[in-house]
């Protein structure tokens, strides 16, 4: 048996026809065969659209018209960057991202500090806290619309507003609508920050706190000089993820306010969707907008990653 195998191995290495009809594949070919489908899929689904949309962003193309794309140079970009409506979208998105990311960072970190010490039921509480993260944003939007509802939602009574005439209209008031989306996003995604922070906290070795106790550090000093810097790398990663998500915020807005009232909650993504798939189907213009968003997100991510590397290397 082993002799036969040895012979077969030998013959295939010598490139002569193997005794059986089966093909012998070199390691390299097997590797290529496994990778090929992924590469083809990536090119078709990611690389090609990326490059094609870059091309389209310099044209006046619309998918519903039969005209071929006409090259217009930087027209789309100058149009977007000189239109105050678009700047309003960017400002809305930026405000939203800042509020929502900083709030969920604080809430998530605080939750992690609370759930860090093991107590009876801490496991089940941790699991329950994670539930919002697992829900679909559309489902979340639908039932938060019920919760926010001024006539029968439960939020206003909980907050102490019992008179329907004076109680806040969360989704209808331009001053409150963005906050409403922030609240829902914080509710849904603080657990994500908590999860990463919890991982970071549990990786801090106990002996650091023992050393700090010997060094007579107060609880606050320990938190500032040991806990915070030790969790910082993971906290930054959580913030990076949430920031990217915040800049792409679409589904919650679409589910809660449709960008309204007026354009109070119209984020860039919502505007992008409208440009691309409603009215005139302005494919060229929307591609340009998408590229601007991409550049902004890459730039912000880079800032975070630099901060992260600086933390690592010191």
């Amino acid at each position, binding site marked *: 048996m082993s002799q036969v195998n040895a012979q077969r191995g030998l013959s295939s290495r010598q490139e002569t026809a193997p005794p059986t009809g089966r093909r012998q594949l070199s390691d390299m070919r097997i590797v290529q065969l496994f990778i090929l489908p992924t590469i083809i899929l990536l090119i078709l689904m990611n690389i090609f659209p990326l490059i094609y949309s870059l091309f389209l962003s310099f044209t006046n193309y619309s998918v519903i018209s039969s005209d071929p794309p006409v090259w217009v140079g930087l027209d789309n970009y100058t149009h977007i960057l000189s239109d105050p409506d678009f700047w309003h979208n960017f400002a809305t998105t930026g405000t939203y991202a800042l509020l929502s990311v900083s709030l969920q960072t604080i809430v998530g970190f605080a939750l992690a500090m609370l759930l860090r010490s093991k107590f009876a039921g801490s496991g089940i509480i941790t699991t329950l806290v994670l539930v919002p993260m697992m829900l679909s944003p559309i489902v979340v939007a639908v039932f938060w619309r019920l919760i926010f509802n001024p006539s029968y939602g439960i939020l206003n009574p909980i907050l102490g507003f019992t008179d329907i005439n004076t109680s806040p209209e969360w989704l209808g008031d331009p001053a409150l609508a963005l906050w409403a989306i922030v609240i829902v996003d914080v509710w849904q995604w603080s657990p994500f920050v908590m999860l990463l922070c919890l991982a970071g906290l549990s990786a801090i070795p106990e002996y650091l706190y023992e050393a700090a106790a*010997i060094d007579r550090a107060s609880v606050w000093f320990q938190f500032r000089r040991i806990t915070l810097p030790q969790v910082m790398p993971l906290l930054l990663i959580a913030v990076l993820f949430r920031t990217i998500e915040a800049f792409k915020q679409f589904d919650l807005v679409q589910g809660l306010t449709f960008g309204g009232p007026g354009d109070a909650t119209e984020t860039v993504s919502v505007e992008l969707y409208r440009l691309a798939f409603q009215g005139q189907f302005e494919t060229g213009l929307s591609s340009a907008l998408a590229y601007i968003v991409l550049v902004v997100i890459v730039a912000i991510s880079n800032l975070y990653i630099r901060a992260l590397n600086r933390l690592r290397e010191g």
Partner: protein
Amino acid sequence: MANIELRGVEKKFGDVFAVKPLDLTIKDGEFIVLLGPSGCGKTTTLRMISGLEAVTVGQILLDGRDVTWLHPSERDIAFVFQFFALYSHMSARDNIAFPLQAAGMARHEVKERVAQVAALLRIDHILDRKPGALSGGDQQRVALARALVRRPAAFLMDEPLGALDAEFRETMRAEIKKLHLAQHATTVYVTHDQIEAMAMGDRIVIMSAAVVQQVGTPTEVYHNPANLFVARFIGSPGMNLVKAKVEPDGARLPGGGLAPISDRWRRALEGSGLEDGSVVLGFRPEAVQVHDGGALRAGVYADDLHGGYTMLHLELADGEIIHGRAARDAMNALGSAVRFDLDPDMMRFFNPETEMAILS
């Protein structure tokens, strides 16, 4: 500076004793070594003194002040951890400054104190590096600096040299001893290395199986071990221990030889109430005097040249091996027969039942 007093201190984890009731007074400025094999309760004892571990029963006093239930930060002690426990995200400088900054000391004063202690330990050039980028020896120096910089009343050190290379250990051992002599701070030093303990300790506390076996100066524990455990544990090799029988003319060794006993020991042995004269006879290798007219016989089993002297492994008539020191140039062919005497002043006797030393 401070003296430390342990009164009936014990520690149980569940039903298991990590430290059985322990009484110990450590004098101001003393360098005391806790010595014992791994798992005997040294670290636990040290952690109880520091306050990192609560005592199960007993009292701990610092300078007469009862600190048994005080937080580590209220005891004015420094602790050097076995694996350094440096703050990995901070530079060596910040590590050393940490206890001062925690106390809210002014910036220029912190700078001054850190510079002083860094000069003392000769680590000025590595202050800006993080612990991960330092060698074991430098990490140890930073850990020592962090303990020294606060000028605490007492130092507790848990196997501070355990993680270092053998050659480096000797340098650091001398350095720590020198620091102690300069500062004269009360120090409790834990080690499992008896050579280290003998070299460094003013007094040694020998522990085994959660129990203190003996407390004494290096000379005391070497020459007058309190029991068989200490006799075996101290010295390399440990004390020779052979079963012997006390007879009117001396101690009868296994295989027939008779070693004369001094009058002092004879009286002590008579008063000790041993049954049928069975004892364990103990003697250090340097008590063995090899010469042609010796009363005892043995065969040479092996010999190790130690530079300054030769360590002979001698096989007694019943096959038992003992160690004896001989001159560097002594020529003894393997397997040859030798004669030797035992220095009567250096013989020690132990009760074979209780394993305790018989006192003269």
